[in-house]
């Protein structure tokens, strides 16, 4: 037996609370971040991802307190993203207890931040988040979007993934903006194209509605890890149930 595929519950955090929306809109309150983190750890989550979606810069410091609190009680890897603009933001999050920091819009606006952060803290803690959408008006299939899916960049998601890895990204979090919040499953062709193009692990994100979607994400999408939010937050499934289902379908997991 070897390396297990990871299940990563994702907590979208704003103003100190976990929320979940559909296509980045209509946010609903899903609870206290520390309590939710502990619950997922107990259920056997392999890692946790926190995305700070706080709009105003006034309340951005809140995420640091949350991470400090979680990191002193939960001993699995923690990834934090959202609002990372400069290398100094990466340092602050790592010092608060994050093991990895995810960079999204800033990677597009200023790729040097990815390069500098990887050089300074090591590739192992730099995740680049890629939000991609299927497009008809480009010579390629999937385009990178920023600002929570609102701004097109003109970049080919697969080429962009290769470029980010060349700058030092140690992992890629690939979110299909067409699928996020829809519960119709991951965009497996997108994930597969990126996974085949790069050497580093990829996390599939966006669209999970049932446990078969997680299996498909690994088998069809070539994902090394699968990320989901709503199916876990609202108690539809526990992480343990998800892992048992994946194991029954021949996927190696940590049980």
């Amino acid at each position, binding site marked *: 037996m070897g390396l297990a595929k990871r299940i990563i519950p994702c907590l979208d955090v704003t103003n100190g609370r976990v929320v979940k929306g559909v296509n980045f809109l209509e946010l609903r309150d899903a609870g206290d971040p520390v309590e939710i983190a502990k619950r997922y750890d107990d259920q056997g989550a392999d890692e946790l991802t926190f995305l700070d979606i706080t709009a105003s810069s006034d309340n951005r410091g809140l995420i640091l307190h949350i991470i400090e609190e979680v990191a002193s009680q939960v001993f699995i890897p923690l990834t934090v993203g959202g609002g990372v603009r400069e290398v100094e933001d990466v340092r602050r999050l790592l010092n608060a207890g994050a*093991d990895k920091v995810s960079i999204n819009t800033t990677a597009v606006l200023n790729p040097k931040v990815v390069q500098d952060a990887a050089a300074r803290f090591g590739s192992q803690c730099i995740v680049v988040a890629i939000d991609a959408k299927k497009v008809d008006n480009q010579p390629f299939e999937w385009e990178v979007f920023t600002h929570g899916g609102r701004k097109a960049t003109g970049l080919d998601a697969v080429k962009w993934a290769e470029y980010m890895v060349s700058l030092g990204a140690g992992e890629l979090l690939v979110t299909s903006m067409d699928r996020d919040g829809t519960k119709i499953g991951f965009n497996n062709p997108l994930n597969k194209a990126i996974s085949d193009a790069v*050497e580093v*692990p990829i996390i599939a994100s966006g669209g999970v509605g049932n446990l078969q979607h997680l299996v498909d994400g690994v088998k069809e999408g070539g994902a090394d890890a699968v990320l989901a939010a709503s199916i876990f937050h609202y108690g539809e499934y526990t992480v343990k149930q998800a892992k048992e289902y994946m194991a029954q379908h021949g996927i190696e997991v940590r049980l």
Partner: protein
Amino acid sequence: MSKIDIAVVDYGMGNLRSVSKALEHVAPGKNVAVTSNPDEVASAERVVFPGQGAMPDCIRELDARGLRAAVMDAAKHKPFLGICIGLQMLFEHSEEGNAAGLGLFKGNVKRFAAVDMFDNQGGDKLKVPHMGWNQVYQVCATGSQPHVLWQGIEDGARFYYVHSYYVQPENESIISGYSNYPKRFTCAIAKDNLFAVQFHPEKSANAGLQLLSNFVNWSPKSP
């Protein structure tokens, strides 16, 4: 200055908060200090030697803080736990940046070779870094018990890894654990007062906390 029970060696390479928090969690009454002061490392009862990033940078920063002698001394004389690059640095040489290590053990640090990175069963591509939870198999000499630091941990328990390089000890008798990716590689070594691991016990949930707890309660015989 109050006496330091457990010194976590800080040479400026990354985040040591996870390591110190996990140690505090398993040793509530103990004074755990993250320190870059060689005197504090020298006076601590036990020493944890972590590491992140690239090994050549780690060695350079260690020397820049004058920590090499204190770390070498601790590795020879007191309960000592190396983690990740803290394991790799104990060897003679690393392929990463073609750098010299501390040379406490004979052997090299090698990168997972691209030609090997295929799953034996499915033929799927295996990713580098080796990131995630892999099974750790305990190694003990015929007829002897597993090392004290494996106590309470199932053989084959999963630990969290993130690395692209692994150690190849020349002296196989120091090997205390291995994992497969896809080939077998050494993930733990033990000698006298020293234990060192490639995975991250501070991020490995209960199995990791058990190993750290075993370490803080360990009374190795002096060499």
